[in-house]
């Protein structure tokens, strides 16, 4: 079967999922069955098909599994949002998907030869850093009382809220891929001190400077989740470029020191660590910004068991008082709700889909013939994987809880738009890598 036909068949699970999912939610909230909601699902599938045809025309050799995997995630996310927050929010989310797909098509059309992005690498990195600072710019910043759990994540542009860090992650990976393509040999270094190859400071310098700056801004923005994500991506790309495990170890050590500093000096972060270590301490449970959210996320997961309680069965607010049991169920805590309703099997399946998507990204990197493409595809796939790890790990207590979005599933426009651009770039790399050589 040809690649594009495989992609078309790959969309079948997404179609089944969205039909079954919406049906399940309808049955749960009997009486709410409306044409509008079913139409929503139909339109969404239509869009996926349109996108598939677009890929068929523009990227005939691209990996056929990536888009169906994304479609499954997006469909699943839409059903979850519909179930958690209702039709209005699901419609807004669907609108973001439409915009996301437009941006996806736009990226593919505009950067058929994505390697020309390399010419703008300094522009891109500066833009990414500016994006990071935006939430702290007066007038754009979210009013302080709605500052999301102690972090400055969002900016306001009229009626829109926007999370710029989602885009910065792509810009920074692009820059790193390009920069390291040029200087990876130099970075490995020729001079030896005590038998250890030392990278030349000249080439290491600018990169460290930029990353120091990015980390500083993140601490300044107090968005530890994104900081963790960026740092992980940096280590991943440096490792692929240099194949030096010692760089990674030094990086982890530096991070451990930085983390220790943050925990002891920033109260907001210390509180996160405390709730991680003692989620069921009655004192932390009742404290403002304490472990209430994380503990109830765990109770919800326990209620889910192996197979979950079923769509629409998780209890998100207390009956009567309407008191929220799991705060932010549609964004930060969505994984806990998924586990509650679909159980260990459902959430493991979800993680497997992410892993398959990442694997396809890595496959594109392996098949690529030039270093920039390799670093770009592997970097983008890594940053996606690390993002999933940071949020799911936070909700399941593998690491302290920090709010980043679950790609394609959490509610939020910026996350969807940025991740569609990310997928477009991976598909572009993949198309070039799989194109039969003319010779």
């Amino acid at each position, binding site marked *: 079967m040809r690649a594009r036909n495989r992609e078309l068949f790959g969309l079948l699970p997404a179609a089944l999922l969205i039909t079954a999912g919406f049906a399940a939610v309808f049955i749960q909230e009997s009486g709410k069955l409306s044409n509008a909601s079913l139409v929503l699902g139909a339109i969404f599938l239509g869009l996926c098909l349109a996108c598939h045809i677009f890929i068929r025309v523009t990227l005939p050799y691209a990996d056929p599994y990536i888009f169906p995997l994304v479609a499954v995630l997006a469909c699943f996310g839409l059903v979850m949002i519909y179930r958690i927050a209702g039709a209005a929010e699901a419609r807004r989310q669907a609108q973001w998907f439409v915009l996301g797909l437009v941006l996806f098509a736009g990226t593919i059309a505009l950067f058929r030869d994505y390697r020309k992005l390399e010419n703008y690498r300094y522009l891109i990195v500066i833009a990414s850093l500016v994006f990071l600072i935006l939430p702290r710019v007066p007038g754009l910043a979210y009013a302080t009382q709605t500052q999301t759990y102690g972090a400055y994540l969002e900016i306001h542009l009229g009626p829109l809220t926007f999370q710029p860090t989602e885009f910065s992650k792509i810009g920074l990976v692009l820059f790193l891929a390009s920069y390291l393509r040029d200087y990876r040999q130099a970075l490995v270094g020729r001079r030896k001190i005590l038998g250890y190859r030392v990278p030349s400071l000249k080439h290491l310098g600018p990169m460290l400077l930029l990353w120091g700056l990015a980390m500083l801004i993140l601490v300044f923005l107090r968005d530890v989740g994104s900081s963790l994500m960026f740092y992980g991506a940096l280590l991943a790309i440096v490792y692929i*470029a240099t194949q030096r495990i010692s760089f990674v170890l030094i990086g982890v050590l530096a991070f451990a020191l930085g983390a220790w500093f943050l925990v002891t000096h920033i109260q907001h972060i210390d509180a996160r660590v405390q709730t991680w270590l003692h989620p069921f301490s009655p004192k932390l449970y009742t404290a403002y910004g304490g472990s209430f959210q994380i503990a109830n996320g*765990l109770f919800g997961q326990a209620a889910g068991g192996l197979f979950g309680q079923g769509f629409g069965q998780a209890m998100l607010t207390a009956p009567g008082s309407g*008191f929220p049991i799991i705060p932010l169920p549609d964004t930060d805590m969505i994984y806990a709700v998924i586990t509650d309703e679909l159980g260990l099997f459902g959430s493991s399946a979800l993680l497997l889909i992410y892993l398959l998507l990442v694997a396809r990204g890595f496959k594109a990197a392996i098949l690529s013939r030039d270093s920039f493409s390799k670093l770009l595809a592997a970097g983008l796939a890594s940053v996606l994987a690390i993002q999933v790890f940071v949020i799911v790990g936070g909700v399941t207590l593998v690491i302290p809880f920090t709010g980043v979005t679950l790609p394609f599933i959490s509610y939020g426009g910026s996350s969807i738009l940025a991740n569609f651009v990310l997928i477009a770039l991976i598909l572009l790399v993949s198309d070039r890598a799989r194109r039969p050589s003319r010779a």
Partner: protein
Amino acid sequence: MNRAITRLFALLVVLFGLLVAFTSRWTVFSATALDKNPLNKLSIYASWEVKRGQILADNGQVLARSVPARGGLWSRSYPFGSLFSQTVGYSNIQFNQAAGLESTYASQLAGTVHSNVSSVFGPLSRSTKGNDLYTTLDPKLQQLARKLLAGRVGSVVAIVPQTGAIKVMYSNPVNNPNNPFACKLVIDNVGCQENLATQGQLPPGSTFKIVTTTAALNTGKFTPQSLLRGPSPLIVSGRPLHNDGDVSYGPTSLTKALTYSINTIYAQVGQRVGPALMSEYMKRFGFYSTPPLDYPAQQMMASGERLNGKLILPTSPYVDIGRMSIGQDKLTVTPLQMAMVVATVANGGTLMAPRLATKVVNPLGQVVESFPPKVYNHVMAPRIAAEIGQMMTKVVEEGTGQAANLQGLYAAGKTGTAQTGGYKNGLELDDAWFVGFPVKDPQIAVAVTLENIQLGYGGTYAAPIAAQIMKAYLAELK
């Protein structure tokens, strides 16, 4: 580069495996523990959407029922008001809280019976009508207990020795379960939100001598006829210990020492039995563990020696074993624990686990779950229990507990008068205790305590209450 990419992917697979492992931990391996975590209100919340079953007394009277509330929910109504506020407890939508049996049996009342299988696979179904809970509680006796306490801070616990069924568990102060958080009352450091019978930390005074006697006789170190001298004062752990009225006794039998509650003799008995065996016998009676009652753990306290709030065993160097043996030192108990002690003697040395529920019945009238009597421990030989029963009979016939000597009752018992250390109008404040059972027809065992009574001899204040309760219960049986 490709090798590095493959290796990186392997690392990511490991990290995702970690995510699955942790999700398994919460959904499967720790799921039961999380379901039972007191902070977890999910099953209580779920119960409000259901017309829960009734909680019924032993005679079928309704102690709690569901009434419709706003938004299609169900709230609870308690026909007896404050009478069962501690035992039955409450389940309150407005304040997101539940206590007592309402909390222990929340899922049964709501009709979602949790088995280990269903908690792993997720609830298989959610019912819309709950099960009824039948209890051991006796409303008439409970009312009598309230009347006899007459508003004084104190507690009455009555247990059927042969089954562990709790007939009475009443304490002052009480609150109104129909509006549980209106009450902010605190009398003598006892708040109306707590259950003195299960949470009180009270010095047991001489009622503890029953435990010391059990250890002394069952180990064969003493017999009821063993003779000891009881000088007053006697130096115990470097400090003088006095008998009541500072009376000294010559060679006296253990029976007589119990009858007149002679402190200096019992301090020697405890010292000779030794900390290790005292520790062993206290544990047999249920000291040092949360009582095995079907009641929320956070509403129960373990009895035993405490230092800075933490339990310490009699073998600890901080314990004065002589004074502990007469119910002093740092020993604190709950009225429930002392009721368990006397019920053991009444039941021939076998302690039955105390319990409040008898069965769960579904809307079709079928018994879904039943709670048959369970042996908690064989504390002593039946022969020893009979001997102690005889000794306790003397206490009521000619000793400190004569106020319990009602005609036709044939009570056996033990008084306790524990100094609280407080004074009022120049008179010392005492906790007055009496524990006892009708020796010829031992179908009920009672523990009564009254707090902070001026010169509050257990024999004067607590014994008459216990006698009334025993008599009323035996009359009910006829």
